[in-house]
């Protein structure tokens, strides 16, 4: 077995400390469970529902939406970023629409989308994609535009086409920023999926949250929060892992710390 890193130990200790404080405050101040449940109550709730299998289908539904929404969102984000960084005209034309899609609260869009696309996975994946693509789009545009001028000059001197400059120079240079955007996108996908389930869903951790609220079952709500958080953390680290494994060479010379 691998030895635990000391930071991990601190991290866990801090976590336990926070939970203890929380437990004590709730107990001493006698805060009703409806307003803030104790960590132990949440834990019990989580365990009960996990062992009963109640959460399984909900986790599953949310997971599908997260992955679907993320893949579509990432494709749109990176794709639009590419398009926009190739043409100033397109950038100026598309920008208002992109910002409009972001400044609008997606949860208010949800009822409209369910009207148009039914209450299946489609509207949820659309909302998830809408929420997750924007930061990735911005990272892509920024990453693609910030390229060493000397290298651009080299490519120009070699008579490379704009597309070649994009694929062989800008893209590799932007890799670390793309991954930064992907990390944000995957976490936002989790929240996007949950939000999309608030409305017109039978399944999913987001639906569990509103149900928990409706039943005044705050521990249930927190259980769903925990599962969403775990999903987010796992996804986030998955992206980090991908970056480290496959794409190390693209920032070897630039990133000076791990």
């Amino acid at each position, binding site marked *: 077995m691998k030895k635990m890193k000391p930071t991990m130990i601190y991290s866990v200790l801090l976590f336990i400390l926070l939970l203890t404080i929380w437990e004590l405050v709730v107990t001493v101040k006698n805060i*009703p*469970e*409806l*307003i803030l449940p104790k960590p132990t109550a949440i834990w019990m709730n989580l365990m009960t*529902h996990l062992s*009963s299998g*109640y959460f399984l289908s909900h986790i599953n539904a949310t997971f599908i939406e997260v992955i679907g929404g993320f893949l579509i969102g990432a494709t749109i984000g990176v794709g639009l970023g590419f398009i926009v960084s190739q043409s100033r005209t397109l950038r100026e034309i598309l920008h208002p629409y992109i910002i409009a899609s972001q400044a609008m609260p997606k949860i208010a869009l949800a*009822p409209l989308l*369910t*009207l*148009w696309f*039914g*209450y299946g996975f489609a509207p949820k994946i659309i909302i998830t994609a809408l929420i997750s693509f924007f930061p990735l789009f911005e990272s892509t545009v920024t990453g693609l535009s910030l390229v060493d001028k000397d290298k651009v000059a080299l490519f120009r001197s070699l008579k490379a086409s704009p597309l070649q400059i994009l694929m062989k120079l800008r893209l590799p240079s932007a890799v670390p920023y793309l991954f930064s955007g992907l990390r944000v996108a995957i976490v936002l996908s989790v929240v996007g999926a949950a939000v999309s389930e*608030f*409305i*017109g*869903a*039978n*399944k999913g951790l987001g*639906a*569990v949250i*509103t*149900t928990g*609220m*409706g*039943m*005044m*079952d*705050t521990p249930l709500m927190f259980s769903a929060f925990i599962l969403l958080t775990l999903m987010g953390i796992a996804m986030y680290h998955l992206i980090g892992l991908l970056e480290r494994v496959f794409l190390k060479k693209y920032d070897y010379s630039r990133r000076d710390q791990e």
Partner: protein
Amino acid sequence: GTEDEVVKEEEQAASKELHKMKMASWSKPIAEQSNLFLAQEKEWFTDAGIEFEYVPGAGGGDAVKNIIAGNADIAFADLEAVLLAVENGADLKVIYNIYPHNVFNLVSLNEQGIETVEDLRGKDVGVYSFTSGTYQNLKLLLYNAGMTEEDVHVIETGVLNFGPLMNGQVAATAATDTGLYDAEQKGLEAVDVIEAKEVLNTPSDVFVVTEETFEQKQDLLIDFLQVYRDSVNYTIEHPDEAAKAAVDTAIDGQDQARNEEIIQIRNQVSVNEQMKEKGLGWFDQALIQRVEDTYVEMGLLEEPVGIDTIVSNELVEQLQ
């Protein structure tokens, strides 16, 4: 192998006969609708040639919009949502009275000393949301006490609306009977309740369809309503069975004991004196007219929408 084939063909024929019936609900599949899940479990819908599908929503408005948009055939929604939609140009028919009683109420802690609506003047009052019946019924109570929204401070508190009440952030909160039950289970005690049905016993939820569906799918609707009514009657007799059916199907149904309590509460508001005579789902047209008049008077509706033509007992009368 001919026998097998015959069986297969029969099955296919049977499945071909099934007609899709999408029901848009104001909520996710929840325990208080257990009779529906029971009917599914016992295959009453299939027996009646119906392939039932539950379309979830968040609020009666969603349900109504879903039938207008053609995403569903029938909506399970509050009457207020129906009237607002009609006012905004929709052609709808209300065909079944699901809960003939007004289940909304106004809850405050004893220590606040709120015994009449008048006591709320200048205080904070919570509602689920502006899209929910809690808001409309609060308006009704205010109107009845000769007050308006301006005289109190209405706040959208979200579905977790008893939290702010217990926390002392609102003087009172508009809620439903089942909401109050849940809150009491979670430690809410010593409350004053002002019930909206004392003022106007509006039906809480109804089945509503578009005019078009009403014209074209009468038989199917009747079959559906029949199953629904039968399932309610059965549930009134056997709440325990319904509570069990809800465990797997209702998203809030893991606790069977709670399910049964909730079902009992709903059973009580599913019938009234008239219905014992005329059958479940029956509308008291006089009351309905009074609802419209009141809503117009209090400004919830800008003008009469002709409720007598919208709400119809035509289908209920054809049920057994």
